[in-house]
């Protein structure tokens, strides 16, 4: 009923909701990756973070290189299909410049951790991990015996994962209203569950829109306002990832990252120039230039409207 204005700057949101030592979840499966939020975490020099993210990719490599992260919980640590994450490999393979604690899962294991966290369950069962070496390096992968007989009439065992409840979850979305009713389309991943699993949630959006836009299509609201603590308007904040209908993926940068991240010096220079050397994401966007953004522009493919009906 009440509409509370939760909009704030990225600087204020990171200052207010991400603290040294926190467990920070950044979600977005290739699409809508909250890169700009990661950059602001780097700018503000957070330390000792545990990062939770299914696909630890470029933004995680950057946060690692900036010294923000001591622990990583993930199910895929690679630069998409474009190559390696240089800093992550140095941290894991050589503890260079510092060791990285790593909790390894599979994708669905991570999904189930969010499901358990969001549903306040002590565990979530899944038909994975039987015979895998993962439980030998991750003692949180455990088994439960079903209280119902299995298909052969004998007791049946199944693996379970524990809940994850991040201190804060940060996601990127196409649009929200001021109070945080958040609409996403295209690949929607596990963002809603990651938000509900968290103690606090920050939603970064391409656009803050009028209440009437959101309310014209309530089924499109994947994250309701009651689960959101801050709304940050940050256009193009998912670059080099993409926002369906807003701008395309910067595949060239993904390919370039394997090269940049391979050399610690190159990587630090990149951070100095593009993250530490920019005041905020607006400056980063401007620095990339209008011509660059024109290259990622997309055309129009509008959804057909549906009728919600109105009582006559």
């Amino acid at each position, binding site marked *: 009923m009440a509409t509370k204005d939760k909009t704030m700057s990225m600087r204020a949101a990171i200052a207010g909701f991400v603290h040294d030592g926190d467990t920070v979840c950044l979600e977005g499966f290739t699409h809508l990756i909250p890169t700009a939020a990661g950059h602001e975490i780097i700018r503000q020099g957070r330390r000792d973070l545990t990062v939770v993210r299914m696909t630890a990719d470029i933004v995680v490599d950057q946060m690692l290189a900036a010294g923000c992260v001591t622990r990583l919980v993930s199910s895929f640590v690679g630069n998409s299909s474009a190559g390696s994450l240089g800093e992550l490999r140095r941290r894991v393979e050589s503890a260079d410049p510092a060791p990285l604690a790593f909790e390894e899962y599979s994708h669905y294991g991570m999904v189930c951790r969010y499901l358990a966290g*969001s*549903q306040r369950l002590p565990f979530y069962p899944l038909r994975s991990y039987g015979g895998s070496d993962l439980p030998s390096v991750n003692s949180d992968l455990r088994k439960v015996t079903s209280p119902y007989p299995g298909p052969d009439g004998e007791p049946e065992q199944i693996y379970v994962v524990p809940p994850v409840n991040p201190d804060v979850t940060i996601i990127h979305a196409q649009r929200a209203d001021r109070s945080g009713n958040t609409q996403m389309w295209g690949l929607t991943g596990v963002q809603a569950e990651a938000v509900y699993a968290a103690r606090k949630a920050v939603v970064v959006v391409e656009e803050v829109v009028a209440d009437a836009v959101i309310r014209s299509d*309530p*089924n499109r609201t994947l994250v309701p306002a009651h*689960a959101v603590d801050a709304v940050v308007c940050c256009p193009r904040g998912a670059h080099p990832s993409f926002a369906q209908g807003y701008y395309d993926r910067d595949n060239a940068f993904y390919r370039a990252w394997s090269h940049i991240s391979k050399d610690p010096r190159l990587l630090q220079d990149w951070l100095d120039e593009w993250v530490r050397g920019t005041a905020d994401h607006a400056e980063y966007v401007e620095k990339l230039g209008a011509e660059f953004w024109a290259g990622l522009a997309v055309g129009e493919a509008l959804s057909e409207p549906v009728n*919600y009906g109105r009582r006559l």
Partner: protein
Amino acid sequence: MSAPLTSSELLSVVASRELASRRKVFAGIGLPTLAAELAHLTVAPDIEVVYESGVCGAHPSRLPETIADAVLVTDAEAVIPMPMLFGCVLQGGHIDVGFLGAAQIDRWGSLNTSVIGDWGSPSVRLPGSGGGVEVMANAREVFVVMRRHNPRSFTGELDFCTTPGPDRALAEGIRPLGTGVTRVITELGILAREGVGEELRLVAVHPGVTVDRVRAATGWDLRVAGTVEEVPPPTWDELRLLREDVDPDRVYLR
């Protein structure tokens, strides 16, 4: 405005006052809706109602007739599917107050909505839990509105415990999130209970109702607060808002 006060109006007004300072309310349709709407206009401007059908942030053009009324959906802020509603919102711990009704309630605030008589061959088959079990287990507190206050409804022993309060859950080693029933609003007054291990106590009576009358209408030896307040009757403002703004078509108030 000179029409006589109805039982629905009285219960709605009293329930609305109890929502002062509460934020997120889980509601079925009917009196809880009226109470929440009135509270929004009076004591709890920031109140958010989540409906058991999955509607969040409703802005209905008319007063809805059911929790699934189409007017709740059109112009709503969000409509979420059942697994998310019950899993993330309710079990996830986002609800401050849930409203429940029942055929029977006991001194600990446990509820029967399943049967009168034996479960296997009942004299009356009632609708059952719906989401009641989940509301009790997961809302921070539960308000119960019972129109009829008599010893069969306020019973020493439930015919069947559909919806257990936390005391019963803890006895089985299960720890619910909330404190169970904290307010029972009836035609005679208000019973209250602050937390686990505590019985419902009579804390207030409506004007003209005696403590003895409430005791006689209660099927167990009802505890009574040191000071039993008199419930202030609905104010002119409360009644006006209820009759003119909340339910002008008298969908519920008839």
